């Protein structure tokens, strides 16, 4: 019976797979089919697993098919660069890697400030394939395909996790949901070589082993939990979520009076081993015993020891005596604990909570205190449609699943509830935490759905009850009975068909979302030609390649931090700031250079040995993620450091609008960023007013910006990337402004003509 239900539910959800044949085979022999039922079940399960893994991998390959095997976005470029470093150098070189090509002139202790799990994983895969299987695969391809491969594993771990919570029917549903839910795909398409790609797999694995350990009270599973926890710590900063969720689970269970020695065994094993292991990661270091983020785990560890003692004493003495014992010891430990925590924090032994942590609780915290965090789009609060967009029908099955957990309140259900509640909140606060919510949505959605299928696919009661009823009631009520059965069948059928439709629609929606929203590499852009064919816009790589080939190898490129990793990865040039935003002041310096007038900027540029300045300009093409749109963040961040010199208000027009046309404020027009973006923009329109397609404003030809301290070095085909070379100090000691004026008047005609062909060539 079990396998029958399983087959049908899965076959509906994974309609594009070849499950339908399978569904037809099983119902014929509920008991025996020539072969043992268990063998068939195992075989089917393996087939289903393979097809689920296949579905989840293949749905992530849109980007490779549409574009090419390329690393996406920003952070993955750094991971890719680090991986290349790892496979070309030794492991210890990697851990001791001091990167002098980023954060010029500071450099970055890269080996000590990254989570090495991802790079080591792909490094290991690369070595295994090369040396053991004699398959010399390019490291880039491994990096590109790592995320889809791990998504297959995630589906399987989700199966095991959900199986522990309910049964294997729910597990299979959860696995297929997890495999194709867009919320998870968003971070794990091929080419999205980011920490989250493997972290979600490890998250599910850790939780699975934790549930297992807690259920059995087994030291063995506790150790496995700790090992996967260690892997998780090595892979993603989000490990803190586990560090707090598991203690919270234990704490709630203790409060519910559910302490048993199983909890003690599982938790203490996990904590002792996991904490020690997590300190092996250089970036984490002594944090687990120093930072407040980790104190909850330590506190619960201590509490559990006390509870264990208390439990022992309780079993030995009458309850009245125990009461006084309990009260005294409780008061003692709580006061001691609070005093200890406060004391240690004030003494500076324990680091206070980090800004990102505060921004989780107070959504306005980041906006006020740390503009750098608020400026990242994935740290914004989630919009409501995003939930539906990312999980489709699961979002309304999710509460039902949580409700079912409440009904059957075992220890593991408490875990699901806590996870669900916490993550729903976090996902509402930050878009990127949608990722951690997705697994539990899938699991509890599957629980709800499989419960529904349990009830509505259960025809056995109908068949069995039928003959008995007939014999007792004889012919009298047979007509009634039959009508009754018909109605029961009909209602069942309606419900089942509805959900079959929903499941089919879910697959459809997921595929659509994946192919349309999440498969763009954002390094290569795509647009449609008038005739409908695809047109690839490859400005980024064009410009980075130009940098790589035409500039000296030690050239320093200044760009806004978003492009730091890409410049490092694709152009291999030294950058001032990059996406690892460890030094706010340095970023503010770059922001100040961008938003100040030329004279002020030039000083900053010279002080930092900048040779080239790179800006992203989408005005010609209508590419909205350009630097003028990000400009206000640069202003805000530098205002945070130099409140006297930079004022956000100055960049708005008199009516308080953010304008780039004739109404733009003088500060705006004077800023280096504005000038670099719109320099010679009017020439494209033959000297007439130019129109900015992103902001829908016109740049009047009369106020075409002039550049004195930098000169245009390169502009990509669609003007998305513009590179400027910083001029040297003048030979005869003039200031650069007069020097430019002089050269303009002297050889104006020849210069113009000499420059023009450059544009013609590009167009």
């Amino acid at each position: 019976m079990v396998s029958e239900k399983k087959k049908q539910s899965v076959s509906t959800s994974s309609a594009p797979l070849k499950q339908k044949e399978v569904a037809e085979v099983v119902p014929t022999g509920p008991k025996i089919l020539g072969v043992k039922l268990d063998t068939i079940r195992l075989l089917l399960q393996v087939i289903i697993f393979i097809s689920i893994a296949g579905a989840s991998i293949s749905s992530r390959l849109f980007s490779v098919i549409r574009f090419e095997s390329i690393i996406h976005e920003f952070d993955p470029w750094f991971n890719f660069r680090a991986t290349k470093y790892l496979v070309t150098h030794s492991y210890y070189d990697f851990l001791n890697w001091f990167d002098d090509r980023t954060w010029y002139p500071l450099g970055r202790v890269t080996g000590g400030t990254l989570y090495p799990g991802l790079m080591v994983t792909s490094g290991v895969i690369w070595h295994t394939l090369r040396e053991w299987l004699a398959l010399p695969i390019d490291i880039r391809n491994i990096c590109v395909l790592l995320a889809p491969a791990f998504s297959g594993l995630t589906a399987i771990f989700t199966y095991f996790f959900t199986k522990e919570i309910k049964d294997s029917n729910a597990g299979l549903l959860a696995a297929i949901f997890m495999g194709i839910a867009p919320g998870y795909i968003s971070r794990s398409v091929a080419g999205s070589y980011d920490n989250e790609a493997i972290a979600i797999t490890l998250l599910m694995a850790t939780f699975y082993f934790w549930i297992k350990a807690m259920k059995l009270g087994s030291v063995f599973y506790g150790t496995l939990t700790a090992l996967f926890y260690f892997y998780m710590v090595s892979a993603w900063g989000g490990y803190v979520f586990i560090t707090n969720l598991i203690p919270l689970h234990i704490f709630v269970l203790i409060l519910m009076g559910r302490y048993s020695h199983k909890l003690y065994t599982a938790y203490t094993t996990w904590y002792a081993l996991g904490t020690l292991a997590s300190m092996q990661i250089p970036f984490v270091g002594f944090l687990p015993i120093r930072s407040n983020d980790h104190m909850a785990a330590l506190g619960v560890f201590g509490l559990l020891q006390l509870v264990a003692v208390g439990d022992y004493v309780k079993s030995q003495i009458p309850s009245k005596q125990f009461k006084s014992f309990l009260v005294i010891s409780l008061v003692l430990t709580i006061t001691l604990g609070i005093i200890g925590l406060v004391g240690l924090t004030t003494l500076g032994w324990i680091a206070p909570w980090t800004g990102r942590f505060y921004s989780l609780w107070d959504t306005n915290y980041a906006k006020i205190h740390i503009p750098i965090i608020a400026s990242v789009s994935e740290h914004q609060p989630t919009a409501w449609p995003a939930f539906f967009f990312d999980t489709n029908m699961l979002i309304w099955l999710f509460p039902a699943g949580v409700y079912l957990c409440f009904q059957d309140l075992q220890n593991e259900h408490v875990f699901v509830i806590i996870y669900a509640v916490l993550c729903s909140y976090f996902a509402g606060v930050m878009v990127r935490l949608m990722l951690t919510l997705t697994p539990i949505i899938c699991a509890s959605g599957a629980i709800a759905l499989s419960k529904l299928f349990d009830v509505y696919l259960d025809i056995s009661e109908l068949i069995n009850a039928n003959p008995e009823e007939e014999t007792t009631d004889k012919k009298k009520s047979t007509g009634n009975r039959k009508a009754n059965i018909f109605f029961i069948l009909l209602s069942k059928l309606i419900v089942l068909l509805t959900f079959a439709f929903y499941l089919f629609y879910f697959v459809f929606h997921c595929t659509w979302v994946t192919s349309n929203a999440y498969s763009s590499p954002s390094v290569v852009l795509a647009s449609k030609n008038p005739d409908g064919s695809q047109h690839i816009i490859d400005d980024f790589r064009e410009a980075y390649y130009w940098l790589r080939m035409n500039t000296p190898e030690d050239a320093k490129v200044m760009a806004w931090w978003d492009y730091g990793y890409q410049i490092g990865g694709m152009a291999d040039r030294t950058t001032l700031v990059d996406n690892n935003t460890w030094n706010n002041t340095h970023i503010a310096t770059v922001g100040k250079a961008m938003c100040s007038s030329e004279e002020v900027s030039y000083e900053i540029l010279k002080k930092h040995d900048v040779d080239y300045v790179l800006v992203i300009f989408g005005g010609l093409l209508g590419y909205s993620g350009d630097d003028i749109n990000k400009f206000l963040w640069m202003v805000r961040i530098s205002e945070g450091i130099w409140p006297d010199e930079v004022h956000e208000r100055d960049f708005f027009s008199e009516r308080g609008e953010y304008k780039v046309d004739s109404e733009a404020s003088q500060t705006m027009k004077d800023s280096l960023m504005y000038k670099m973006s719109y320099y010679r923009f009017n020439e494209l329109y033959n000297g007439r007013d130019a129109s900015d397609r992103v902001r829908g404003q016109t740049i009047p030809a009369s106020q075409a910006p002039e550049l004195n301290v930098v000169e245009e070095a390169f502009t990509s085909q669609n003007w998305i990337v513009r590179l400027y070379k910083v001029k040297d100090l003048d030979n005869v000691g003039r200031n650069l402004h007069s020097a430019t004026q002089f050269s303009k008047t002297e050889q104006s005609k020849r210069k113009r003509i000499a420059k023009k062909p450059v544009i013609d060539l590009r167009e």
Partner: protein
Amino acid sequence: MVKKDAKISPAVASSIKKATGTSTSSSTGTLASATPNSISQPITDLVNAVNTTYKSYINSLTPRLQLIDVFLAFLVLLGILQFVYVILIGNFPFNAFLGGFISCVGQFVLTVSLRLQYENSTSDKTETSIDEIEAEEEKSEDAPKSNSLFESISPERAFGDYIFASLILHFIVYHFIN
């Protein structure tokens, strides 16, 4: 059901000393009108509790459990020794101290887990030998649960798990100490 080790008695004893201080001060503040009898009542209760606990603990010891308990006491001593060393002399190789201290704590915890699992698996046989009152109390409390608590873990399995976890623990410690 015996759950804890020799460490309990000193720990509890020390907590009593502190408890007497806090309880007297708080009760004089809040229950000024109460008779002196009510102040000393919890303390005598406490002493009684500790005594009975200690007695039943001694009664329940088997040679194997005794061995484990001695090991536990040794671990606690070692941990305290390291802590005292750090306080007196300083924590210069912090890695080494942490490694040593956590190895003690970790091993302690693992051993306690092992002890709990042993005890549960052997509890069916030993239950009869323990005082009848106690057995009764237990059965009324959580007898069906505790007997089948670790049903899937035999003593051999428990020991295997223990060795596995300890090996990993000490491998990490070894790696951590440098």
